[in-house]
């Protein structure tokens, strides 16, 4: 063979290898994906993808969800008006959408009004939490936006909400050009993108794959040109595909597969932190044994969290007892309750149940945080509590049925999960402590005016140190008096090829794909 042929082949081989390093293949179960419209999307995988297609005014970086950083806005300020909070954002010049148009204040106004008009499942963050009204967002000049929200709303929460895809800025001209009737281009943006994020959407074959490509106009240039998200539901197949090199990132591996992969130098395992909490809730409605604070305290002493986390979860989670998860402002690391069945039994006797107590524990048939089947978690809790005379009958039902029962307050004790709707402590504090919010506190008949007031006060507190102090008081109070036994904060393990660098999944489930690089 002539030498140049060899060279040519070598070059071609190299070219192909380099090409492969420019494509990142991410396998997982993306079946919850139903839209990629930033103002409508509210599903885990949809939010994760849309986050790479659209930019927000402000954003969080990495795992830090307490420091706001500039996004499309290079600076912002919060002022106290007479009746409103006034937030002013200065946009940076020269940011461009994937359509080539420049991002200006009118796009921001359009996007916020769009969120209010489309009433997507996440729109309550704007309408209820931030109490944002139509017409409250104004373009002062092409690079300055002013937003006014009522005094009763928390500007801190609003800024946190703005980091979420709901606050993603769409190209108003492109959306309007493709609008059908009054839909603000919703049909079009379901499977097309018009954002200024590092990637643009090329193709979405439902049930099969989503393909993203570098947005040629983006301010942030991604390290990998093309990202392919393959739908792989079956964990055994996910493992096969990762090991064969067909995919670079695998989400949803079983604990056994993860152990095998961690031991193989060709792969690595990353544990993504989450803001999820797995907890037991006790219904305190009148007549229920759990209306008695001593019974609730007995339950708190009757769960062996250490064994649960180390044994069942194999470390895919951390022990927690308070309701603000690690990663948010106000996180309270205290864990005063240890496993002490004798003490629990004594409390139970004092409460008037010397023979012990029989009750029903509802658990989902599905998977709980940390990748463990919920019935297994329930069985572990049942065994621990039985030693203290708390005899739970487990009833496992489909998750949708469990939620319906829980919402209708028809439970005695339930094993459930919770993730905040937005990365701010108020995303937990209000639902967990304010009865009138008709969320968790209401479901469990926990009606405590002091707790509710503390939550409201903390939500509106602008000074971070004061806010932290308020949350400290509130979390301790709910820990000792409330209807919850927080069990753990799960972590999500993800398998990666050793060639992949810079992968991160933050606690709000967002994955900055543009930071990921891949060696040939």
């Amino acid at each position, binding site marked *: 063979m002539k030498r140049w042929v060899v060279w040519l082949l070598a070059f071609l081989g190299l070219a192909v290898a380099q*090409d*492969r390093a420019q*494509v990142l*293949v991410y396998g997982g179960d993306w*079946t919850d994906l*139903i*839209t990629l419209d930033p103002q409508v999307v509210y599903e885990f995988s949809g939010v994760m993808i849309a986050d790479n297609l659209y930019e927000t005014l402000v954003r969080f970086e990495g795992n830090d969800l307490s420091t706001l950083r500039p996004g499309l806005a290079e600076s912002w300020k919060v002022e106290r008006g007479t009746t409103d909070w006034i937030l002013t954002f200065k946009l940076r010049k020269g940011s461009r959408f994937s359509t080539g148009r420049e991002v200006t204040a009118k796009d921001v106004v359009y996007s916020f009004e769009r969120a209010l008009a489309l*009433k997507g*499942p996440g729109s*309550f963050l704007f309408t*209820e939490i931030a109490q944002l009204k139509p017409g409250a967002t104004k373009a002062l000049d092409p690079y300055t936006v002013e937003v006014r929200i009522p005094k009763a709303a928390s500007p801190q929460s609003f800024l946190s909400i703005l980091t979420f895809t709901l606050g993603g800025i769409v190209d108003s001209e492109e959306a309007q050009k493709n609008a059908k009737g009054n839909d603000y281009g919703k049909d079009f943006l*379901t499977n097309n993108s018009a954002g200024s994020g590092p990637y643009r959407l090329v*193709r979405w*074959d*439902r*049930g*099969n*794959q989503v*393909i993203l490509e570098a947005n040629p106009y983006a301010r942030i240039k991604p390290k990998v040109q093309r990202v*392919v998200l*393959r*739908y*792989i*539901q*079956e964990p*055994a*197949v996910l493992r*096969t*595909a990762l*090991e*064969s090199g*067909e*995919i670079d990132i695998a989400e949803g591996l079983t604990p056994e597969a993860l152990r095998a992969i961690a031991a193989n130098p060709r792969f690595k395992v990353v544990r993504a932190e989450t803001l999820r909490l797995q907890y037991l809730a006790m219904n305190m409605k009148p007549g229920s044994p759990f209306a008695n604070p001593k019974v609730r305290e007995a339950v708190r002493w009757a769960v062996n969290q250490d064994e649960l986390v180390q044994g069942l979860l194999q470390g895919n989670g951390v022990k927690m007892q308070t309701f603000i998860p690690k990663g948010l402002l106000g996180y309270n690391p205290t864990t005063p309750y240890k496993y002490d069945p004798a003490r629990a039994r004594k409390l139970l006797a004092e409460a008037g149940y010397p023979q012990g107590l029989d009750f029903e524990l509802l658990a989902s048939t599905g998977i709980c945080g940390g990748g463990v089947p919920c019935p297994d978690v329930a069985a572990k809790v049942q065994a621990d509590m039985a030693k203290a005379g708390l005899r739970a009958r487990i009833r496992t039902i*489909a998750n*949708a*049925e469990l*939620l*319906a029962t829980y*919402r209708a307050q028809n439970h005695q004790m339930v094993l*459930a*999960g*919770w*993730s905040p*709707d937005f990365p701010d402590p108020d995303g937990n504090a209000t*639902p967990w402590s304010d009865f009138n919010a*008709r*969320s968790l506190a209401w479901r469990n008949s926990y009606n405590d005016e002091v707790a509710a007031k503390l939550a409201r006060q903390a939500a509106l507190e602008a000074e971070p140190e004061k806010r932290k102090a308020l949350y400290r008081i509130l979390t301790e109070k709910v820990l000792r008096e409330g209807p919850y036994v927080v069990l753990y904060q799960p972590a999500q393990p993800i398998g990666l090829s050793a060639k992949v660098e810079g992968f991160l999944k933050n606690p709000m489930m967002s994955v900055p794909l543009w930071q990921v690089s891949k060696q040939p």
Partner: protein
Amino acid sequence: MVAYLLRRLFMVLFVGVGITFVTFFIAQVIPIDPAVAALGENAREEQIQEFRKRYGLDQPLLVQYSIYLQRLLQLDLGRSLRTGRPVAEDLKEFFPATLELALSAFLVAVLLGLPAGVWAALRQNRPPDLLVRLMALLLGSTPVFFLAILLLDLLHRRLGVLPGPGRLDPYLIPPPPVTGLVTVDALLARNFAAFQDALAHLFLPAFVLGSASAALLARMVRAAMLEVLSQDYVRTAWAKGLSERQVVFRHALKNAALPVLTLLGGLMGGLLSGAVLTETIFSWPGLGRYVTQSATSLDFPAVMGVTLLVGVIYSLLNLAVDLLYALLDPRIRYA
């Protein structure tokens, strides 16, 4: 004949309406609120009310059903509660994958099952027959998920001779979607690399899905052939000194074809209604996975759409089988 055809097609319509009726009322028996199922753990009361109103779930059952029928007359299958899209759009996206897989699996079944059955019948109780019967027993009784994972692990991960799950290599640029059948789309785009790769991706799922049908078919063909081969006219044919090929294909197979045809119609119907396990393991975006997803999230417009589609497919296949009967057996005439 035309009158018969029209009558039968009219019946298909009836079957379709009957199917929607049964599915609709089964969906109502389930004690879970679809709105809660769709909106998840953090949903607020107002959101749930709004959702119920938007999808007409707050109306009385009979009103809901009559609205559904009215829409159906305009060929509108309603909107999916889960994806929020028209069900017809979803079906248009998921059905081609099932069609592509079903046709390939059917091909595998016929190519493997038919000759194997004939061969076994001709060599009854001799090694070929025993081999075919053993294989049929093995393939017919191996769970699909087991066979699929085994073959994928062996041929893809260990030996690397066949591609992994999915319809196309993620590193290839997929051809623009026209028909939704990746092989056909690749040919239309004259993208032969993609065509080859799509065929390779099709091979394993088609084999896994088709092999169970092949086993069934082989057993059926064998039994039907054995019966025919013992008939007087076949003995006469042998006695006339006809070659084996003439006896088998002209005299025996044609007569054995009627029961086989019925089975083939049923097999094709089964394949076209989507294969949940095969589709899940091979990450194949077909009807089976779509309907499972819809059922678990209580998305009954979607479930009804799929059931209706599958019901109509079955009815039409039955009609086709009946028409083929007349073609094969001159004694059968429809009027």
